[in-house]
């Protein structure tokens, strides 16, 4: 087997085993109801994680995505509840603003040549700050369209509900997978993660691609914010605090190399599901507390970082740096 599939295989196997253990303890976890809730409860995380996957494959990082989720939720709430804008129009506005926000971060990363983590850190402050200035409190959204979308679901055999937002997440994964694996833009993303110098020499449009990647990540952050507002029927400036870490963890657990160049959109889905599984297990258990989720995710993250280190150093990957001419 190609070594690059190992982390993904490991994730899949861990997920299957973990799920089997869960079912053996709580047979009721094997139901479409639980599966449906998996998708609904993690929809916003999954959507944002697709964006994070692109960023990480390109060798970057986006710390702003949680804040963008919060900002998008608040913007929608303000537009719909306070300014009376139709939700669909509000969605379009919010998505456009989010994409522009990400594009400007990408431009800063490329043109100022500064590490992405510091630029997206500024982006995080900026987005949270803007959200908090718009409102300090949670703004409820009460609109027919909202109720309609929230109530939309497909009933699965066995009583489970495949909700609209759960389906949307699956759709985003599908489209994300196509973009990553089937388009020129996707191949540019991998190229940047593999070796930006080579990529530039080989004619990859580095500036355009970098800006596109961060615009896409923030666009999906905005979409995740909209989904979150549908999920909670409100907009709250402190929504999804720390979610960027969950998204990064999902990406890495899903087999994407944190240093860039290798990764799968599908793996991220399993990464998100694995996190959901940990949470669900803790809910079912009842005696375990929620903080075990963080510890478990931290441990998984560590395991996968170590695994990647082993797999990729054994493979002797990565071009050696060519010395500057004397």
């Amino acid at each position, binding site marked *: 087997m190609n070594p690059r599939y190992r982390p993904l295989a490991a994730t899949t196997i861990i997920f299957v085993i973990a799920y089997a253990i869960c079912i053996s303890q709580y047979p009721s976890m094997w139901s479409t109801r639980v599966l449906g809730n998996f998708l609904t409860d993690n929809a916003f995380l999954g959507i944002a994680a697709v964006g994070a996957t692109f960023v990480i494959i390109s060798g970057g990082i986006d710390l702003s995505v949680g804040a963008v989720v919060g900002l998008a939720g608040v913007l929608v709430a303000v537009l719909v509840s306070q300014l009376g804008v139709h939700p669909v129009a509000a969605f379009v506005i919010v998505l456009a603003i989010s994409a522009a926000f990400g594009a400007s971060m990408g431009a800063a990363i490329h043109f100022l040549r500064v590490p992405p983590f510091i630029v997206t850190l500024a982006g995080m*402050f900026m987005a949270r700050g803007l959200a908090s200035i718009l409102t300090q409190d949670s703004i409820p959204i009460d609109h027919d369209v909202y109720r309609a979308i929230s109530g939309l679901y497909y009933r699965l055999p066995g009583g489970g509900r495949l909700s609209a937002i759960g389906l949307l997440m699956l759709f985003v994964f599908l489209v994300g997978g196509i973009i990553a694996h089937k388009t020129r833009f996707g191949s540019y993303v991998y190229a940047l993660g593999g070796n930006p110098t080579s990529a530039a020499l080989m004619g990859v449009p580095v500036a355009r691609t970098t800006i596109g990647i961060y615009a896409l990540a923030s666009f999906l952050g905005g979409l995740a914010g909209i989904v979150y507002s549908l999920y909670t029927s409100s907009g709250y400036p402190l929504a999804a605090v720390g979610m960027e870490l969950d998204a990064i963890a999902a990406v890495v657990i899903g087999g994407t190399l944190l240093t860039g160049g290798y990764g799968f959109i599908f793996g991220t889905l399993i990464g998100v599901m694995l996190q959901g599984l940990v949470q669900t297990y803790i809910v079912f258990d009842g005696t375990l507390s929620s903080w075990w989720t963080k*510890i478990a995710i931290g441990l998984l993250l560590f395991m996968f970082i170590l695994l990647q280190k082993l797999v990729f150093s054994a493979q002797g990957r990565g071009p050696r740096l060519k010395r500057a001419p004397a």
Partner: protein
Amino acid sequence: MRRLSLSDIAKPQLLALAFILVLNWMVFPGFFNVTWQDGRLFGSLIDVINRGAPVAILAIGMTAIIATRGVDLSVGAVMAVAGAVAATSAVAGQPLIVTLAGALLVGLACGLWNGSLVAFLGIQPFVATLVLMVAGRGVAQLITEGSIVTFSDPALIFVGTGSVLGLPMPAVIALILMIAAHLVMRRTAIGLFVEAIGTNLSAANYTGLRARTVILGLYAFGGCCAALAGVIAAADIRGADANNAGLWLELDAILAVVIGGTSLLGGRFSIPMSVLGAVIIQAMNTGILVSGLPPEFNLIVKASVIILILVMQSDRVAEVVSRRFGRMTTRGK
């Protein structure tokens, strides 16, 4: 030691601080008022150094790490862990010395963990410390069992709220730590080694420097600083809040170091300047507070400061500016 020259005093950081303080005074005329009450000083200025102390302590630990081209993203989480350890220890009736030792040991362990991943496994610092950033808060909650553990041990509370010679205790601790760390860096060879490693790791290895040991030591020290900041933060609110203690402070600490003039690309560093950076950040926070603007405005100001610094430090911008002024720039190899 060198004598202070005019150019030292006129450092942009000091000018920035003066500017912010004057701005604060303009929106809030009582800003510079300091009163003496119950054997301690009160006033907005005192508040700045008191509130700024935890970030200053984090920045003291972070400075040398950044100078070696590293970063420690876990300090906020380590604060929460150490705060939780201190609180449970105080609740269990341990004396202050045991409580402090316990918290610092936990911080040291966290730092050694980070340092080992960076120095011996060769994992990028940003990635290595992300693990503890994610898991640390969970560990803190595990210790506090999810609740806010409150304590009433007067000795521990004194660490966060007491005063020495009229000055708030956190500020005194930060000041002493800054002087001690600065002396250790500059009176031993460690500071030179750190700058050498940050400037050219390969050359440092050729010179026979034990770069890995130095790096491990820096992360360990960073962990201890985070633990100390965590104890102060917990003592200040008389309780350990695993969810919110130290939240986002790693970012403030990095910002303080960068404002202080240490480059994220490693090399020269100054611990006192990083502390000054922390004071500048807190002065902005306090200024926004006293001006009546919502505290969230802070985030936007911080973001703007980061952007401003990035633009100022950018080679590309320097190139464009110097070209505008008609000077020749040598094209790098």
